Each structure stands twice: as structure tokens, then as C-alpha cells.
């Protein structure tokens, strides 16, 4: 393929790709993201190819391995276009029937359709499923429609047209004002206005400027950046090129976690294809503007998501943050002005340029515009990636889209913002989610992790989990963070092991305040959030651990034991069969008994019992 030399060249090519892709043609889209991959996409793909060949459909139906469709719980997902018939949890053995009935005859196979757990109704089209119906997927929408390793697909859906518009009809300053007017804020957690960041970087003193994409998605429980890079890396690249044009940069970097091998691979292919078309490299589309992008793979350190640490890591050094009295937009990578934005932020840029800042600013709340992708995970029926306008309530996200809490359990809290965020209790379920509202209740937006917890999750254990995580991830150079978090971890471990003392809660609060005030970087400054919010909203649980030596949720092993409720137990014997320690005994149809000396509290019996006869005491 020869390089595109002008706007005209691009437009001719785009029209050609559009023509080649009749919207009425038969396409089988199979999710090949990491999530569905772990559920067995490869085998489904093989079966599909074999079956298409066998039925002589080669050339008549297009099989497309796409990026993440978002509804990971139901993977592997197969969607058949043009109708959009949605088959969840597809196994290789389902394929012959799907090909024979749906692809050949256009019949819908009723019993393979998605069944709504609430209404118990079968739903044939993806867009009618409650999980998708209430979303607004402007950033994520194309993920299920394009082949991430085929740039032609992206171009056929007007991909890179925002770049053309910016390069040929807008000055760099006009691009910056459009981003400023749109109200776009950093999606990586900080929520800093993107346009202002770009403007400062453009005006900063220096000859060379860099733009960077932060794909070091370290927040455990969030994976939208991985899914975007895997499924639609061109949208991120296009955003970066526009940003580079606006800022006046010729060199960009994507700093991506090495734990995301598929994202690294697909991004690499994306860069190569964009270079082949002349959309990256020297003299982009004949505009005279040069820009190249390099991938840098991270070494697995959470702190490298922090801007100054990330830039040290890019320089091949140990990723230790520095104080930010000099901002990275003035002096970042190689001491030059550097604009760092998150993956999702970059992916928003082409959308704003294409649709105009006014349209974008019409979505969301007063100070938080556009949409946000959340990774809705944990104890919720429909887990997956959810994109909604800013200001959507937690209740809508968790209950209407997420389908509520499974197994008739009770909602307890939702944790937003990852290790730096906080837990939000039931009282605030109607909170509209935006940067300000989350901060008001002590949490943060973060990169969009949303972990739902039910009655079986212990909040003290959760705080201990996050503090432990941060203890291991602290770079160790500043004392408040290194020593303070270690002390908090020790106190929390004591509480969870039944060695909590009166005054521990107050001591935790004091430590937390100190760590927040005096830590050098964002990791330390936000580290105590999970402890502070769990104390604020679930103090009685801490007190139960410390005073009564009980873990009400039945998580902290030293603080509870299982007992059989003799009235509820009908002696079905299931728990006894499943117990790995042979600790449960009893005759069939007679109440059973747990031998406390043998029991290792593995919770297998508790989860197996269908009659709620195993009690946490």
C-alpha cells in the first residue's frame, strides 16, 4: 500500500472501503479480547472457520475477530450482523447449529439467546439487552464492530477523519480551544482539564515536546484501557496524533503494561498499519506535520502510572516519582515539556473533533462532560465494561445495567477508583457519578474501576487488602508513604487476626491524616482513602472485629466459625460430600454437624448449601 499524500487520497480510500463494506452483508463478529479469550474464543473461532468452509459459505460470510464487546461475563460472545443477533457463552459445539440455522437460514435459535435474569425473557438483539440498552457507547461502540488488526475497517467507519479535519481545517490553537470547550477531563483519575494541559505544554519553554499515552493500567479491577488498546488502538493513536499536532510535538510514546500482551501486540500492528498509510511518520497526509509513536513496555510497578514516575521509567530508570513543583508539562521526559494523557482520554479526542465541542459538552454534568467507561465487576450479575454519560447514578449502573447482586445477597458497598479510591455505602446509591460528587463522599473517579461488594465481603479485610497492595507498590523513597502504609497494614492485619486493640481505629485515622498530608506523590496522598471511607461508613464492622472479636461477614478466619442450623438443615449431605477436610458429618435426612477442629473455614460448605443452613458465627 502506498502512502496517502493528501486529504483527497484519504477521502477516496475511505469511500472505497465504505463501498466494499455493504452494511447489509453477513458478518459474524466474535469477541477476541482477553476476557473472552480466557473463556475459550480460540476454539470457537476454529469451529466457526471449519463450519463456514463445510457449508460452502466462504466468501459469503465475513468472520471478524473483534475487540472486547464489554459484556465479559457472557463471553465468548458471537454477534451476527446485519440483524445484530447476540449469542452469549458460545461453545465450539454450538457452532454447527448457529451456522446451519442462523447464518444459512436466518433463523434465531431461541434457547441459545441471552436470558435476562430478571424478566427471564430471551432477548435476540444485543442492543435490546438491558446491559447495553442503557449505555451510551461513544468511545467503546466501535469495539465490537471492527477488526482491530485491520485499519481499513477503522477507516471505513470514518476513522482518521478527525485527524484530517484537524490537520487541514484547524490551527493547533483551534484544536486546543475545541478540547477546552468540550470540557474533557483526564480519564486516568486526576480529572485535570485536558485542553489546559495541552495549552500549557504548547506554551512551555523548550524546543522538543513529547506526547504520551498512559496505558499502565495498574488499578486492580479496571481494564477499560486494555480493552480499548486491544480492540480499537487506532482511536487512541488518532487522538495522540491530533494532540501532537495541537501541542507541536513530533514524538509520542505509549507506556503500556507488559502484563497485557494482546494490547501490546495489537497496538504494534496498529502503529505499523498507520505508518504504511502515511497517517503516522513523516509528512502525514502531505500536511508537512511529522509524528512517530513508540511503544514502551512497563515492568510491572503500580507507581509507574504516576506521571513523573512513568517518565523516569521511559528513560529506562527506576520509576520513582519526584515532587511536582515543576510540572511534567514544563519538564517531563528528558527534561522537556511532555503531555501525558490516559488511553481513554486520547480516545475521546477524535470524537470531540468530529462532532464538535458543543455536542460533547451537552453530555454529562456541569463540570464533568462526556461519558466514562467503568469496569463493573465483583458481586454483580452483569460484569463487564459499561460506558455511560457522566452523572449517571450508581443505582442505574449497578442495578439497571449491572442487573443487581446475584444469589439473593444484599448489596453492601461499591468501591470506586481502585486502591486510591474509597468505598461508598448503600445510602449513596443515588449519587450521580462525576468527579465532584465522588470526591464529596470521600472516593475518587480514578480510572473507572467499580467493584461491587455484598454481605459476604468484610470491609476491614478490604481495607487491609488495598493497604497491603499499596505497601508492596510504594516505591519507598518518602517516609510517610513507606513507613506509614506499613504501619497501617500491621494494625489492619492485627485487627483481622483478632489482635485488634481499643484505640486502633483512632490510630489508623491519625496515621491516615499524616500520610495524606506529607506523602510525595499521588500514591501516598490517596493511599489512606480506603481505610478512611471504610471507617467512616462501616465503623461498626471495625468495632465488631476489635471488641467482640467477630467478623460479621465471615471472611477473617480467626474471627468466625461455621455452624449448621439444625432447623434449616434437611440433611441433603451435599456439604459433607464437598468438604475437603471431611469435617462435616451426619446421616442423610438428618441435621449435619461441623467438627470445628477439622474445619479450615474454606467456605465450600457455606457456598454449596442451598438452604442457607450453614451459619457464620
Amino acid at each position, binding site marked *: 500500500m502506498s502512502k496517502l499524500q493528501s486529504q483527497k487520497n484519504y477521502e477516496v480510500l475511505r469511500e472505497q472501503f465504505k463501498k466494499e463494506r455493504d452494511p447489509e452483508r453477513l458478518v459474524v463478529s466474535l469477541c477476541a479480547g*482477553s*476476557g473472552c*479469550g*480466557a*473463556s475459550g474464543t480460540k476454539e470457537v473461532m476454529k469451529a466457526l472457520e471449519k463450519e463456514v468452509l463445510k457449508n460452502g459459505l466462504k466468501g459469503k460470510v465475513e468472520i471478524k475477530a473483534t475487540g472486547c464487546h464489554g459484556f*465479559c*461475563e457472557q*463471553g465468548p460472545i458471537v454477534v451476527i450482523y446485519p440483524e445484530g443477533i447476540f449469542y452469549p457463552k458460545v461453545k465450539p459445539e454450538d457452532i454447527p447449529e448457529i451456522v446451519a440455522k442462523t447464518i444459512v437460514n436466518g433463523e434465531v435459535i431461541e434457547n441459545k439467546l441471552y436470558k435476562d435474569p430478571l424478566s427471564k425473557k430471551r432477548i435476540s438483539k444485543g442492543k435490546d439487552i438491558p446491559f447495553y440498552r442503557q449505555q451510551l457507547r461513544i468511545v467503546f461502540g466501535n469495539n465490537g464492530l471492527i477488526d482491530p488488526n485491520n485499519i481499513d475497517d477503522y477507516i471505513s467507519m470514518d476513522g482518521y477523519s478527525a485527524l484530517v479535519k484537524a490537520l487541514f481545517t484547524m490551527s493547533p490553537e483551534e484544536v486546543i480551544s475545541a478540547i477546552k470547550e468540550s470540557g474533557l477531563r483526564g480519564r486516568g483519575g486526576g480529572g485535570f482539564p485536558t485542553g489546559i494541559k495541552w495549552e500549557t505544554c504548547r506554551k512551555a519553554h523548550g524546543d522538543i515536546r513529547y506526547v504520551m499515552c498512559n496505558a499502565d*493500567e*495498574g*488499578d*486492580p*479491577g*479496571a*481494564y477499560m484501557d*486494555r*480493552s480499548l488498546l486491544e480492540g480499537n488502538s487506532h482511536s487512541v493513536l488518532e487522538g495522540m496524533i491530533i494532540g501532537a499536532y495541537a501541542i507541536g510535538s513530533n514524538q509520542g510514546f505509549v507506556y503500556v503494561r*507488559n*502484563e*497485557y*500482551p494482546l494490547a501490546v501486540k495489537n497496538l504494534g500492528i496498529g502503529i505499523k498499519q498507520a505508518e504504511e498509510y502515511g497517517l503516522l511518520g513523516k509528512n502525514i497526509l502531505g500536511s508537512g506535520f511529522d509524528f512517530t509513536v513508540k511503544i*514502551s*513496555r*512497563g*515492568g*510491572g*510497578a*503500580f507507581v509507574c502510572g504516576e506521571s513523573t514516575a512513568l517518565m523516569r*521509567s*521511559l*528513560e*529506562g*530508570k*527506576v*520509576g520513582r516519582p519526584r515532587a511536582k513543583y515543576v510540572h511534567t508539562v514544563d519538564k517531563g521526559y528528558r527534561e522537556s515539556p511532555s503531555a501525558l494523557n490516559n488511553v481513554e482520554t486520547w480516545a475521546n479526542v477524535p470524537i470531540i473533533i468530529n462532532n464538535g465541542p458543543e455536542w460533547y459538552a451537552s453530555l454529562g454534568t456541569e463540570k464533568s462532560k462526556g461519558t466514562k467507561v467503568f*469496569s463493573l*465487576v*465483583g*458481586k454483580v450479575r452483569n*460484569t*463487564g465494561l459499561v460506558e455511560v454519560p457522566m452523572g449517571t447514578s450508581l443505582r442505574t449502573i449497578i442495578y439497571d445495567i449491572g442487573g443487581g447482586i446475584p444469589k439473593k445477597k444484599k448489596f453492601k458497598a461499591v*468501591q470506586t477508583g*481502585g*486502591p486510591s479510591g474509597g468505598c461508598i455505602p448503600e445510602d449513596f446509591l443515588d449519587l450521580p457519578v462525576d468527579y465532584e460528587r465522588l470526591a464529596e463522599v470521600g472516593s475518587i473517579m480514578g480510572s473507572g*474501576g467499580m*467493584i461491587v*461488594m455484598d454481605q459476604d*465481603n468484610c470491609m476491614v479485610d*478490604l481495607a487491609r*487488602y*488495598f493497604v497491603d*497492595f499499596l505497601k508492596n*507498590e510504594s*516505591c519507598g523513597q518518602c517516609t510517610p508513604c513507606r513507613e506509614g502504609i506499613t504501619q497501617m497494614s500491621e494494625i489492619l492485619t492485627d485487627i483481622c487476626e483478632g489482635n485488634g486493640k481499643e484505640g486502633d481505629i483512632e490510630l489508623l485515622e491519625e496515621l491516615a491524616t499524616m500520610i495524606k498530608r506529607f506523602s510525595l506523590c499521588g500514591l501516598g496522598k490517596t493511599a489512606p482513602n480506603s481505610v478512611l471511607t471504610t471507617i467512616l461508613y462501616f465503623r461498626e464492622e471495625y468495632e465488631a472485629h476489635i471488641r467482640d472479636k467477630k467478623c460479621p461477614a465471615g471472611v477473617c478466619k480467626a474471627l468466625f466459625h461455621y455452624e449448621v442450623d439444625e432447623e434449616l438443615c434437611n440433611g441433603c449431605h451435599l456439604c459433607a460430600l464437598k468438604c*475437603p477436610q471431611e469435617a462435616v458429618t451426619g446421616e442423610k435426612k438428618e441435621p449435619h454437624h461441623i467438627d470445628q477442629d477439622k474445619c479450615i473455614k*474454606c*467456605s*465450600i460448605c457455606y457456598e454449596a448449601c442451598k438452604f442457607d443452613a450453614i451459619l457464620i458465627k
Partner: protein
Amino acid sequence: MERITAIKGELQVKIEPIDTVYLDKVLEQNMQDPENLIMILQDVSAKYNYLPREVLNYVVERLNVSMSLIYSAATFYKAFSLKPRGKYIINVCLGTACHVRGAEKIKESLEERLNIHEGETTENLKFTLETVRCLGCCALGPVITVNETSYGGLDRGKALKIIEKYEDEA
């Protein structure tokens, strides 16, 4: 002084032959630039499963940097190990979503089964058990990976079955 000897002791467990052809290729791909050190070490790790001392000496020489610089990066980043690791590296995801769905229990049962603790390698150099904070398959938790393959929606039984499959392989 004592600490350094201890470190040396660990490193001398196994003498690796230096594959200069591979290393030269890696260094060339990374333009022999110390700025790409982390990626160079990743490629070394991909081949040897750890960072052998002899290989690091070679990297020091070719990049013209100090061993202390390499050592600081090798010990700072979680992806690197200075000790030999097993043929199959099992990573148990302990991300939040996996944690709330009982990842800890999966880790415990694997520890019991393989008779090693987190971060250790079995004597026959077959398995290394590690933990990772999030693999980004949060909707399918608990998740483990064995080398590059991911397995989702696990419980104890399913996790042990996966390990059995690898145990049976030569």
C-alpha cells in the same frame, strides 16, 4: 558485605550459557540504548525465565552502563527475577475483582498442591507460583495464567485440574 555475598550465592545456582546471537538481536532491536533497559531485561527474561548473572554482565558490557543501574531496575520492577523460575509460571490474579470472589483461596490451594509458597519454584523447576495485581480479565474472576494462557471463572477444583494438566505434560 554479607548481603552482597548472599545475592551472589543466589545467582550462582545455575550457570547459563550466554546466547549471544539472541542477546545481540535484542540489543539491536532496542538500539543498544540504555533508555530501553527495561524492555531489554524483559526480553532476557522471556528467554531465560529470569535474569542470569552472566547475561547481565554481557548487557553491562554492551550498553556500557553500571551493574548497579541494572540491579536497581531488576529489583524495582515486579516483572524480573534474579532467581531461576520454572518452566510454567503460574500467576494468580489478586486484583480487587478476583479478591472479592475468593482468589486468596485459589492461591492457598495451589500452594498446598505444589508445596511451595508464593514467589517460589518447585524443586524440579517445573512450576513457579507468583501473584499479580490484576490481569485485566476482571469480569471472569478469579483468574490465573499459566505462562501466556489465561483461565477464568475458577474455583479450587477447576484451578487444581488445570495444574494437573500441566503436571502430566513432560
